Each structure stands twice: as structure tokens, then as C-alpha cells.
């Protein structure tokens, strides 16, 4: 019996602690607009997610300095999902419970999809700077979803057209079995087959993190392919391209914007030379691009990372929509996103009925002397 009393006391103490914590949280909620930022902030894909947090902070600081949105100070609340769907739902639930109305994120398509169900039920507007999986907008399932990057099928079309221009006839299409990589690879396969002049030599998925890829590389060699298109992220791409080059397979290697990251060049080193990757179109001519870049250098002392400008534009678009809608009412914000233009580093954008930004797209890049250079 004595033990039970102790337990009860402990439970009460814990409950009291929580109650105290909650009470404190509620106090200063007036006059502030919380911008949720979700994505990979740790783990091996953190280099894709962290620039978005920086972008959100910089946009928030900029707008706060000008008096905030409708007089509310913007506060950034970031949640880490490590690009894992199960962690993304946790992050989304956390943001929902914090009564966040606008979310910048997530970074990876799989994680975004998992989180969107929760946002949809909670009437939260979600805008990703990087999730390119086509059904996210094209299925029409998520009217609350927007993105400032073009979808994979646009990217795949460009990739296949480019492969055709290179004179490739028989292409091995490899992917990493993930939502993003496999989606992209399937579109490439579809476009190659529709083209008629080209054929798919091989369509295979590799297991991310496997000890080595020599068997699949042998298979590429044996298939007689004159080029490889890879859908996935840089860790697998660098392993495959390294194994290919070590086996003296010198056919062109084309990939997506999951590979258009400087980490790929750093890891694959000399073997990265000549690799093609599609990535967001060069936007450095836009006036706000320089502003965003300068702000990042001033605050963090480094050049911005992947998807930084897309995230910067998304943060601006979200906050602008709240301003134009006169509050965080779901229908009004969605309407504002679709009708009101906003000046961003990507140019002057608004969103179409499905949630894709109008006027953003992809270009092809090639690694030359350790750097990605745009090819025409």
C-alpha cells in the first residue's frame, strides 16, 4: 500500500509538471505568426533540409524588421523528420498540436506525403521547396499542398530529351526503390518507351546502403546499354558511378536533382567528372536572388545550400498569402496563393490550381573540374 501512495505522488508530480509546462506555453501566443519548418535537419540527408531552415529564418527576420505580417511577428518553429515518413508524421502531429497554420516543408517526397494527410485534416497549408513527386499535386488529393519546384515528370522529360540529344539509343534506368527515385525512373522509362527511337536496356532498383553494387554494375555492362539514368540520391549515385568507372564502363551517367549536390562531387571525386544531373533552372539573374544570397552570407558566413532559393521563395509566398488573406483562415490563404503574385528569388510566382508554382523549371548540369556547370 505504501508503494502505491509513492507511485500516486510521483504521477501527480509529473502531471503537475506537464500542466505547468502547458500553462507557460499558452501565455505569449498573442501577436505572433508561427511558420512551421519541417524536413531533414539531421541524418544523411540533412544537407537538403538545413538550408530551408536558414531561408525561413532569414525571411522571417526580414519581414519582422518591416513590422511583421499584419502586425504579427513571425516565429520559425522547426521540426526534424530526417526524410523518414514515420518521423514526418510525428513532426506534423507536433506542428498541428502547436496550432501552426502554415508549414514550409517537407524536404523528401516520401516524408511529405506521409505528413500531408495530417495537414489536410488539420487545415494546414503546406509548401515544399523540394518534394518533386508528381502525384503530390497531380492526384488532386492534397488541395492544401503547394511547391516551388517543378515535379519529377517535368524533370524526367527533360532528362530523356537530353539523353536523345546525346545520341543515346539503349538506356539502363536504375533507381533506389524510394518514392522519389523510383517515381523519377518510372517516368524516364515511360518517356523513353514512348519516344520510339530509344529503348530501355534495363530497369532495376538497388538497395540503398548495400555493401557493394558490383553485381548491378556488371548487369549494366552486360545489358549493352550506352547510357545510364539514375533516379535517387547522391550516396547511391556516387557508389554506382565509382563502381562503373573502376570497371572501365565509360558510358554517360545521367541523374536527377537528388544528385545535383556538391556532396556528390566531394564523395565521388574524380569519378564524378562528366556526370550529368538535372536541377532547378539557373535563376541567378533575378534581382531578389542576389538579396537572398547576400542575406545568407551575412548571417551564416557561407554560400547557401540545396533548395535554399526555393525555400526562400516558399516562405515569402506563404507569408505573403497570409498577409493578403488578412489572417490564417485556410480557404483565404489557399485562394491568395493561387491568385496573388509575389516577388521571389525564383521570379514573380503564383500557384496553379493543383499547387505547382507557375514559371519554375529544370536545366541540365554537368560536372566539369569539380563543379556543376549548366549545359545548353
Amino acid at each position, binding site marked *: 500500500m505504501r508503494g502505491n501512495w509513492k507511485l500516486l505522488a510521483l504521477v501527480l508530480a509529473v502531471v503537475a509538471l506537464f500542466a505547468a509546462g502547458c500553462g507557460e506555453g499558452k501565455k505569449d501566443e498573442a501577436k505572433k505568426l508561427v511558420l512551421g519548418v519541417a524536413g531533414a535537419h539531421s541524418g544523411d540527408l540533412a544537407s537538403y533540409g538545413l538550408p530551408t531552415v536558414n531561408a525561413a529564418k532569414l525571411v522571417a527576420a526580414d519581414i519582422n524588421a518591416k513590422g511583421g505580417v499584419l502586425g504579427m511577428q513571425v516565429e520559425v518553429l522547426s521540426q526534424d523528420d530526417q526524410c523518414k515518413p514515420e518521423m514526418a508524421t510525428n513532426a506534423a502531429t507536433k506542428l498541428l498540436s502547436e496550432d501552426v497554420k502554415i508549414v514550409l516543408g517537407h524536404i523528401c517526397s516520401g516524408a511529405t506525403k506521409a505528413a500531408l494527410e495530417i495537414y489536410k485534416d488539420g487545415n494546414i497549408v503546406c509548401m515544399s521547396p523540394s518534394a518533386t513527386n508528381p502525384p503530390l499535386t497531380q492526384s488532386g488529393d492534397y488541395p492544401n499542398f503547394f511547391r516551388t519546384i517543378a515535379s519529377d515528370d517535368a524533370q524526367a522529360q527533360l532528362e530523356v530529351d537530353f539523353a536523345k540529344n546525346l545520341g543515346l539509343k539503349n538506356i539502363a534506368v536504375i533507381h533506389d526503390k524510394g518514392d522519389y527515385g523510383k517515381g523519377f525512373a518510372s517516368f524516364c522509362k515511360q518517356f523513353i518507351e514512348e519516344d520510339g527511337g530509344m529503348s530501355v536496356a534495363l530497369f532495376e532498383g538497388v538497395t540503398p*546502403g548495400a555493401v*557493394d553494387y558490383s*553485381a548491378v554494375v556488371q548487369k549494366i555492362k552486360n545489358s549493352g546499354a550506352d547510357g545510364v539514368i539514375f533516379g535517387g540520391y547522391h550516396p547511391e549515385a*556516387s557508389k554506382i558511378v565509382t563502381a562503373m568507372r573502376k570497371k572501365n564502363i565509360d558510358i554517360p551517367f545521367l541523374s536527377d536533382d537528388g544528385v545535383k549536390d556538391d556532396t556528390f562531387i566531394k*564523395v565521388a571525386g574524380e569519378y564524378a567528372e562528366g556526370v550529368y544531373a538535372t536541377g532547378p533552372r539557373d535563376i541567378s539573374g533575378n534581382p531578389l536572388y542576389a538579396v537572398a544570397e547576400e542575406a545568407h552570407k551575412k548571417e551564416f558566413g557561407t554560400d547557401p545550400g540545396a533548395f535554399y532559393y526555393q525555400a526562400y521563395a516558399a516562405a515569402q509566398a506563404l507569408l505573403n498569402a497570409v498577409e493578403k488573406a488578412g489572417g490564417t483562415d485556410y480557404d483565404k490563404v489557399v485562394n491568395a496563393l493561387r491568385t496573388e503574385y509575389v516577388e521571389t528569388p525564383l521570379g514573380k510566382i503564383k500557384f496553379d490550381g493543383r499547387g505547382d508554382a507557375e514559371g519554375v523549371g529544370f536545366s541540365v548540369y554537368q560536372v566539369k573540374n569539380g563543379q556543376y556547370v549548366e549545359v545548353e
Partner: protein
Amino acid sequence: MEYFLEILFGGLTRGSIYALIALGYTMVYGIIELINFAHGEIYMIGAFTGLIIAGVLGAAGFPAAAIFVLAILGAVLYSAAYGYTIEKIAYKPLRGAQRLSPLISAIGMSIFLQNYVMLAQTSDFLPFPSLIPEFKVPWIGHIISSSELIIVVVTILVCIGLTLFIKFTRLGKAMRATAQNRKMAMLVGINVNTVISATFVVGSSLAAVGGVLIASHIGQINYYIGFIAGIKAFTAAVLGGIGSVPGAMLGALILGQTEAFATGYVSSDYEDVFAFALLVLILIFRPAGIMGKEPVQKV
């Protein structure tokens, strides 16, 4: 025919790496009946140590072959120290406890080491230099690269060395005795603590060799590589009969070949499906693994 041989050698390389890790699992299990889930992390730490040593020696201008040998030696020493320490910290205090406790402790250790390396080093992938000397292999150079050949040869040498060690040295004999019956071994004057420590040291050294070899072969590492390699090696150990040293070698070889041929002749989408379907099949017909002993009911 050439394609077949290429796949065969690819599978052999893969199996060799699994073998180097699987031996550590099986030896530890044989002695104290513990599945050392932190073993994959030892492999990862070995690879990181190799990278650091190679970086330092490379900057100091050592010749490539010397860097290769010293990186392996350094990785072996460092990983062995980790293996020894892990046993002392995480398993020894729990030796009298029920069997689940050290298992949980092992999983905790694995998570701790992964996160420790992530924080102390980086969460990014790092390039790993090609330490293995590049040369053209005579006769079969078009189907096997020098790094694959060296991985296979080193693994064979290590396996032979380990077998001789267990068969003919005093310590090896003590290990076999402890594996058979720990209490009885104690009664005849074997220092069981030393034997267990030695087992961890040997197992960790083998994993470190594997870590440096494979990292050099594929050219990149990060803090997470130990997890998947560890799971696969554990599968190999179970396949061959956990607790049995030749079983682990055989299991690793079979697993490597199964994966390579599944990729080569079916599809790499089904690589894991084939590997684990094989595991299930073998366990149905031989529950203790291919070379495992059926457990004797102690009355």
C-alpha cells in the same frame, strides 16, 4: 560465361566482407550466447579509423602500400580496443542477468556508437581513398579488379589464420572449452574473463579489416554503414549456424552468392527477398543453421 564469372566474383567479394563481420557475431555467440548488435558499429569505427589514418599518412607522404597496411593495422588496434571496452562496459556487468538484458544493452550500445560517430565526425558521406593498390590481375583481369581480388585473398588468409588459431593455440583451446561449458572451463582453471575479452578483441579486429577493405573498395563511408552490413552479416551467421566458425564462413559465402546471382539473373529489386527467403528455407529444414549443432536439452 564471362558474365557468370563476373557475378561469381562479385558475390565472392560480397561474401568475403560478410564473412569478416559474421565471424565476430558467431564467436561471441559461441562463447557467451549473446548477439552482439554493436558489432556492425565496430566495423564502421574500423572504417573511420582507416580513413583518419590514411588521411594523416597520405599528407605525410607515405607510399600507398604502406598506408594500406598501416591503415588496416591502426583500424584493427582501435576497433579491438573498442570491442574490449564495450564488453567490459555493456556486457560484463550483465553476465549473471537474464538473457534479454545484455541483448538490450547491445542494441543500446549500437545506437550510442552510431550517434557518437555522427556527432564526433559528420552525418555526411565522406570520400574514402582507394587504399588497395591498383594493378592488372593476370589472366582474369577483365573479370576481377585488384581490389576485389585482394578482399577475397585477405579474407581467405584471415579465415585460415583464425581456424589455426582456434585449433592449435592455448587461447584457442580455452575458447573452445569455454564455448562448450563455461562452468566446467572455470573448474579446470581457465580464466574465462580473459577468454571472453580475447573473443571480443579477435572478432572486432576481423570486423575492422572488413571495414577498411570495403570502404576502400566502394569509396565512401558514413556513420550508418555498420547497420546494414551488420544485419546482413548476422543473417549469414544464422544461416551457417550461429556459434559455429566454419558455419559463419559458409553462410557468408552462400549469402553473398545468393544476392549476387539474384541481382545478376533476376533483378536487384529482389536481392533481399532472395537472401531472406533462403534464410527462411534453411531454418525450416535445419533450425540451427547449416553447420549449427542441435541444442541439447539439459535436464
